[in-house]
């Protein structure tokens, strides 16, 4: 995974907060911001964020993955997304 790819993922995730109006366009949500404690994602936002991740990265989030450890920061989310994209890639190769 290249650094450039990481940046793209972080940028895409950060755009979610601008789209939702929970962060101003000029304010950058950093990869390690605690988006839950800061109130950037609440009980409603979590549903929207799951849908956003699934649609933006063409991955599927399983019910048992909706945990604080996967959603607390953009870095945690990025790790989940990359893991899913990697395993999807391997499946394609073996096919």
């Amino acid at each position, binding site marked *: 995974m290249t650094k450039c790819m990481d940046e793209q993922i972080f940028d895409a995730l950060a755009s979610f907060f601008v789209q939702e109006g929970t962060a101003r366009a000029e304010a950058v949500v950093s990869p390690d911001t605690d988006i839950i404690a800061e109130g950037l994602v*609440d009980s409603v936002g979590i*549903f929207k964020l799951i849908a956003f991740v699934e649609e933006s990265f063409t991955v599927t989030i399983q019910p048992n993955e909706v945990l604080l450890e996967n959603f607390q920061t953009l870095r945690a989310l990025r790790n989940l997304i990359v893991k899913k994209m990697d395993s999807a890639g391997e499946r394609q190769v073996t096919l």
Partner: protein
Amino acid sequence: MSTVPEFCDVVVIGGGPAGSLAATYLTGKGYSVALFDRQKHPRYQVGESLLPDIWKYCDEAGVTDAIAGEGFIRKAGGSVDWNGEMRRLSFSDFGYTRPALHVERERFDQILLERARASGAWIGEEIAVLDADFSRAEEDESEVSVAYRLVREDSASRIRCRYVVDASGQNGVIGRQLGLRVFDEAFRFMSVWGYFDNSSYLAADGVIYPARSVRQVPPTTYVSALPQGDGWAWLWHIILRETTSIGLVIPIAWVQQTKGSVESWEAWFLRQCEAIPLLQRLLAHATFCKGSVRLVRNYSYRSHRVAGPGFFLLGDAAGFVDPIFSVGVVFSMYSAYAAAHTIDRCFRHRFRRDEHRAIFSSQVQARLELSRSLALPYYQARDAGHAQAREAMGFSSTQAQALMYAASLLTDRSGNFDSMADSPEAHRAATERVRPLEIPRD
């Protein structure tokens, strides 16, 4: 009322906040909705204290202006008298900028129902849903057949749909049919309440104001532990535009001990009210509204499933706990949002319906469990669901955790919270923001 449709995407049972908002959200996403309510609005409903969290759901439904324009009473926070200590809590201390409200629920609920109608949902009042047939709900194109009856007629008819949203409140039409409801046996409570005209009220400064000042000096919701209640029983005092709602939440065992078989509920209720000195001061110039006493037994319950093939349970139909923190309407609105979102996902990816439903269930159950853990005295960390409650707490912002902690501090229920939260920051913020209140003597 136009003819009941034969088919729609979603049938919503119940026209309270959960049902009306679910209908509004779903029509907004382009689905056809038929909503049935067995009563005609406006209709009476208890539960008049609303937290500022309602606004984000109102925004989402496009009903904020209509609610704000109604001129409901804006409240400043809560005044809590618990075991001899009087303390207060203001939402503004927790970063809330929008008001909490005291509302006449018949009017509030009507505004939400009218919003659902304006959004394009078909609204059928005075229609009782009897049951639903889910035998084809798991087929590729989920299909559910719902039986209903116009309350003024005898014969039943059916409507077909893809999903049913049960927002029928304590009736719990679908939950009851499927045997999903579980009562909290360890928490056998009931509630008795009534109305008084011209009651004085407590403001955030601890001063007692006459009813006529309510527009100039915002009231607080006054909550007090009851003297013989063992830290469980409590009363609410909620001033509205024309009247004041006063209610008791009490162990059934206590009622059995104190209420004679010939004593009326009204007489018993008034006798309890007289035993609370501060309440008596508030009621010094008030008139009791004869015939206004009502009660609910079997007070606290949850559902062992809140969704299944073809159905979703919302609000009070999913679960109900001691309303001490006024979370009922907020939970209804939250579950309406969650259900509408999930149904949309199910329509888009029908082969992932089970996954979408599982996320809905775990989120809604966790939220309900969090409410239970904060509201039920003696809630135990070993209780089933504790882990879910912890997870829901983890998904709450520091600000929201601080408010929950402060509320539980006021009512000596913070032990529950301590086993739930890991945020020392929320803990500190809460402790700092709960303020002692001196009520001037007469």
